[in-house]
Every structure is written in structure tokens, then in C-alpha cells.
């Protein structure tokens, strides 16, 4: 039962990365663009953003109900980067809403936009750093030692920081693809395709650097990678999809574009998880938190699954309806 809930957890995480990623990435993309282009991004993302945070909340709930020690360990040892991400989430969410609902005046809108853009970047970076710290294994359960070792070193290292950069690029890339498949003006389609292609190149480069940084921080990630057939397959598939994506960016098949970008993200997440499974949080000196050691008793897992199942049965149809009404009905209509 714990396995099933873990799979649901991964799916929620994946959906957060893809949908929330496009949303966070929107802010980053606005930062990379100017004037009209920047407005196009915000318009493409506006109608569905309110729903995206829920994936993160689901991840958190599954963790503290089903795998409580993962939740408490991560939030204790990684208090600082998590707090920084949260501050970012508050700022960007509020600024986005304020920008959308305030009276049309130039100055306040410009301020909200700046806050939204920079906090999107900031949040994404620290989410990546947090994830990196969970993978790396510099977390120590001995909280009595000095502050720096217990609460800073687990995340302030090359690997975690490079994960932060990787995450920023990944989210910006997702937003780029999302925007391309959302707009009609050929000039801007060209423009965003170009940005997306550049982001792909950057992603591949930084992706390689992540492995190097792991080596530098004493975590043989590459070695573990080549010994995990499933993650090799995932990463190879993600790479093979690249030329296809490149081609579709020229041909502009909107559905295909999104599917491929989603597929690649899925493969990256699968690849990562396959390397470390059944370890959920890597701990210094090998006392890793695994799926078995963290799982709450069977009765809990069952009720959790039941709640999630009912939730899915209610949520997915309504989510589908939301997308249908806004995304496919009439893509050129005004959203406001």
C-alpha cells in the first residue's frame, strides 16, 4: 500500500513540476523578455494558476500522513531553504493576484510585476536547492552539533546550488513551450521558439554540470546512474525526444510540443527517482530514510489511498472541465 501512495506522491510532484513549473517559469520567462512579449506570457498563464499549488499541498499531505519522518526530517534540517522558498511562494502568489486585480495603472503594475518575476526565480531556485539537498545526503540527524554543519551545509554546496540552477532553467523551458503553444501571433511564436531552444541547450549543459557537482561533493551520482537501468532508459528517452521537440518547434504542432516537454520532464523525474529508490531522503553516514523505514502503518496507508482516490475522482473531471472551457474552447478569446 505504501508503494501505491509513493507512486501517487511522485505523480503529484511531477504534476507540480510540469504545471506549477510552467507557472513559476512564467515569471522567469517574463524576466527574460520585455514589453509586449512579457505581457503575452502573463496572459497565457493567468486562468489556471490558482489550481497549481494544490499539487504541492498534496505532496506535503501525503508526506506527513504516509511518510511522517521524511516530512519532519526535511523540514527540520532544511528549514532555511524551505523557508526561503515559502517566502517566495507568498510574494509571487500575492503579487500575481494583485497585478491581475488592481486598477489599470502603470506604476503599481510594474512593481507587482517585478516582485512576481524575481520571486518566481527565487522560489524556483530554492525549491531546486532543497531537492538537491534531499538527494545529496549531507543531512545529519544530529541537530546538536554546530549550527553551520546541521542547518547550512546540507544545502549550501555545489550540488544543491547546481540543482537550483537546473530547476530554474527547466521551469523557464516549460513556460516557454507552454507559451509557444498558446499564442497566435507568428512573430512572437518565432521569438518564444528561439528562447525555448536556447533554454534547451542551457538545460543540457547544466544537467551535465549537476553530475559533476555531485562528484565534487562526494556523491557518486554518475556511478549510481550507470548502475540503474531504469534511469539510463529514462534519460536516454528524454535525450532522444530532444530532436523531435526541436523539429516540432519549427513545425509548431501545439499538442505535440506540450506532450514532448511533459514527457521529457516525466523522464527526468523518473530517472532521478530510479537512481535513489527506495531511499527517500539521503542522510549522512548511511542512515538513509527509505520507503520502508518511513512508511506509516498499513491502516493509515489504506485510508490515505482512499482519500486520494476519491479526491482524484472529483478533481480530475473538474480539472478537465476547467482546461476545456479555457484552453480548447476558443483559444483566441479574451480571458478577462
Amino acid at each position: 500500500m505504501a508503494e501505491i501512495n509513493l507512486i501517487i506522491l511522485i505523480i503529484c510532484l511531477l504534476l507540480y513540476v510540469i504545471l506549477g513549473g510552467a507557472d513559476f517559469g512564467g515569471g522567469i520567462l517574463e524576466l527574460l523578455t520585455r514589453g509586449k512579449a512579457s505581457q503575452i506570457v502573463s496572459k497565457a498563464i493567468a486562468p489556471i494558476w490558482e489550481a497549481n499549488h494544490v499539487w504541492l499541498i498534496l505532496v506535503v499531505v501525503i508526506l506527513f500522513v504516509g511518510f511522517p519522518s521524511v516530512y519532519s526530517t526535511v523540514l527540520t534540517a532544511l528549514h532555511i531553504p524551505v523557508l526561503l522558498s515559502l517566502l517566495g511562494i507568498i510574494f509571487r502568489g500575492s503579487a500575481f493576484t494583485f497585478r491581475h486585480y488592481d486598477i489599470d495603472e502603470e506604476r503599481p503594475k510594474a512593481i507587482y510585476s517585478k516582485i512576481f518575476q524575481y520571486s518566481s526565480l527565487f522560489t524556483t531556485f530554492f525549491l531546486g536547492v532543497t531537492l538537491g539537498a534531499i538527494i545529496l545526503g549531507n543531512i545529519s540527524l544530529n541537530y546538536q552539533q554546530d549550527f553551520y554543519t546541521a542547518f547550512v551545509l546540507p544545502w549550501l554546496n555545489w550540488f544543491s546550488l547546481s540543482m537550483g540552477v537546473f530547476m530554474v532553467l527547466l521551469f523557464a523551458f516549460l513556460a516557454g513551450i507552454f507559451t509557444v503553444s498558446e499564442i497566435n501571433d507568428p512573430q512572437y511564436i518565432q521569438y518564444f521558439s528561439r528562447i525555448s531552444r536556447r533554454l534547451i541547450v542551457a538545460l543540457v549543459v547544466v544537467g551535465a554540470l549537476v553530475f559533476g557537482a555531485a562528484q565534487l561533493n562526494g556523491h557518486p551520482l554518475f556511478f549510481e546512474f550507470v548502475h540503474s537501468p531504469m534511469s539510463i532508459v529514462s534519460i536516454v528517452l528524454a535525450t532522444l525526444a530532444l530532436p523531435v521537440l526541436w523539429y516540432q518547434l519549427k513545425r509548431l504542432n501545439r499538442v505535440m510540443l506540450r506532450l514532448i516537454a511533459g514527457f521529457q520532464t516525466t523522464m527526468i523525474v523518473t530517472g532521478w527517482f530510479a537512481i535513489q529508490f527506495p531511499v527517500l531522503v539521503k542522510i549522512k553516514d548511511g542512515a538513509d530514510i527509505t520507503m520502508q523505514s518511513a512508511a506509516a502503518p498499513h491502516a493509515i496507508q489504506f485510508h490515505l489511498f482512499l482519500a486520494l482516490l476519491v479526491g482524484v475522482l472529483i478533481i480530475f473531471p473538474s480539472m478537465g472541465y476547467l482546461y476545456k472551457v479555457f484552453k480548447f474552447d476558443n483559444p483566441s478569446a479574451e480571458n478577462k
Partner: protein
Amino acid sequence: MAARMQMGVSLGFHIIFASIGMVMPWFMFVAEWKWLRTNNPVYLDLAKAWSKGVAIFFAVGAVSGTVLSFELGMLWPTFMEHAGPIFGMPFSWEGTAFFLEAIALGLFLYGWNRLNKRVHLYTGLVVGIAGVLSGIFVISANAWMNAPAGFDWVNGHAENIDPVKAMFNKAWFSQAHHMTIAAFSATGFAVAGIHAILYLKNKLEIHKKALTIALAFASVAAILQPLSGDHAAKNVAKLQPAKLAAFESHFETQEKAPLIIGGIPNEEKREVKYAIKLPGFLSFLAHGDFNAEVKGLEEFPEEEWPPVPITHYSFQIMVGIGMFLMLIAFLFLAGTFKWKHWLEKNWWLKLLFVATPLGFIALEAGWIVTEVGRQPWIIYGIMKTKDSLTPMPGIQYTFYTVSAVYLILTFIVTWLLSRQIKLLHAKYL
């Protein structure tokens, strides 16, 4: 202490935004329904104006709620590690309800021109229902901390966990109705108060209509609230006698216990000065019998006392305001059914304006009553708050940061709303 304060500030902030986000959809739903029935475009404008307010409050409530789900673990990891599996079920349901609310709200806000009018109206209703449900689920989790159930505590670990029993613990029902009604009353009076002062300045039809809808909800809630409070108090007397004793600074166990109104409690001397005492009424409040014995704080070791003065003052404030709002509610009923000219009078509008913040003050006081009244326990009778604190030093800096952020947000939201109102006036004047 900083951790407790941070939790207090975060929850105190979230509770206001969540309450408004849960109640205002009902107002906008009624406004739209009225528009469909009467074809009066003022109702449509009102529904649209309110829906913008809902969007702002919902979004801020959602981010502050997301943050809270992390904060629980960042501040009280030991508590969450043990309690998470037990009281997590209402949270998972809450996730679903919240999700549904977000989706329905998205449809409502952006669907004015895309959805059939009826369908659009119903999405508003779904927002309201899902909001109330998610509120109730969260309250059920909080109630579990007051009345832990659904597990056996063996050597510092929970065993034989039964999440269903934990969710339907003995306190969930009384807390759920008391809180839901409080949210309706507080939001109703706040919205009514704002429209009252606007109406006083500009006699616009839209404010009058807004006033009536908000007051209708608020009045029903304010009249039901004392009954709900009575039920809640009896429940507390049964489940957490020390908390009840702290409400009333009731130090000695006695029969025909007096209801103490106001006054300054002194923990050391175990007495309350300058208070009005109504003999037997506390016995009646707690057990429904003027002669019943009510346990005093003396029955409990002092280290298990909640902070008496804070709990006492908060309880007095909550009850006092509750009574005052009930009075306004009766005046409104009298004005609606008999003395119609009252409702146009300046004193009435001014009275409503005075009541604008009162509901929320009472709501916060009530929340302090239940949270501070539970101390020193985080899980009543099982785990103490201090034993569940995060080992990370320097937590006060987290507290300062979070408080500052919430303060800024509160200012911006207030400012935004005032600008929205100006926008509305620009259309009519």
C-alpha cells in the same frame, strides 16, 4: 516562544483570509442569483465586484495555507511526526475540497462570458460549499489536538491508529459549527460595515443591496452563535475542564459556580478582582444545571495550567462581542419586518460601521481561547508543546521575517480593496 508566536501570527492571519474566502462566495452567489431573478444589473455589478474581492482573499488565503502546511513541520517536527498519520485524514480531504474550490473559483472568475448563466451560478455555489467543507476539515484536525482520539499511546508512540475515529473526535462537531458560524458572522458584519459607511456617504443602490445580503447572513449567524457557543462550552467542560476553568478564571472547585464577567484574574492569589459574579451560572453553562459542581484550576497541577489571564480576557472579549452582535442582528430583524425606516437612519449605518471589525476580533479571541487554553499541551494530555519544538536555534528570526511579510500583505490587501471600491464608485458617480 518565538515558534508559538509565529504559529499564532501565521494562523491568526490565515484564519481571517480563509474565513472571508469561505464566506464571501456565498454573498456573490446570492447576488448573482438575485440578478438572474430580478434582471437588475446592480446585482450583477455587485456579484462581479465581490468576486474580485473573493479572488484576492482566496489567493492570499491559499498561499498562506500552503505556507502553514510547511510551517507545522518546520516548527513542530516531533508533533507532526507522531500526529501526522493520525490526524492527517481531514487534511487529505481538505486538500480535495480546496482543489475543487480553486477550480470552481477559476471557472467563476473567468467564465462570465464563456459559461451558460445557470452553470456559472452553480460554480459559485460549488465554491461556497467546497470552502465551508475545507474549513470544517481543518477544524476537525484542530479539534483532534483538543480531544485526541483514534490511537493508543504506548511508550511515546502511537499504536493501533484509527484515522476515522481521530477525524470524528469528540470535539470536531462543536468546534466545526462554532467556527463556521463565526466565519459567517464575522465576514457578514465586516462586509456590511464597509458598505454601510459607503452608503452613508453616497446613497447608492448597490451598497444598500450589498448591505442587505451581508446582514442577512450575518444576522442568522449571530443569533445562532450563542446556542452554538453554549454547546461548545459544555463540550469543553467535559473534555478539557482545565481549559474551561481558565476561561472563567475559576480557581476553586465548587457547586453553584458563579459566572465571572470581566475582572482581572490574579494567578498567584487565585482570585479575580472587580468582576461581576452571577452565582450558579457557570454551573449552568458548563453542565446545564445551576447546582452542578464545576472543577476549578486547583484540581490541576500548576504546570498544567493554561496561561489564565490571556485565556480569561480572550473569552470575555469573545462572549461580549458575540452578545453585542446578536443585539445588532435582532435590530436588523426588527428593521426588516417592522420598523423599515430604521434601516435608512444614520445611527443604524454608523452602528454597523462600528461593528465592522468586531466579528473578526471575536473570531481571533475565540481562536486564542481554544489554542492558548489548550497549553501547555500540543496534543491534549499526550504531548507538551515545548517537547515538540524544532531543534533549530535562532527560530526568532524566522518569526520576525514571517510576521513582517504578513504585515505587509495585510496593508496591501487593504489598499487594494479601497482602490476596488473607488473603481466601483467611478462607474456610478
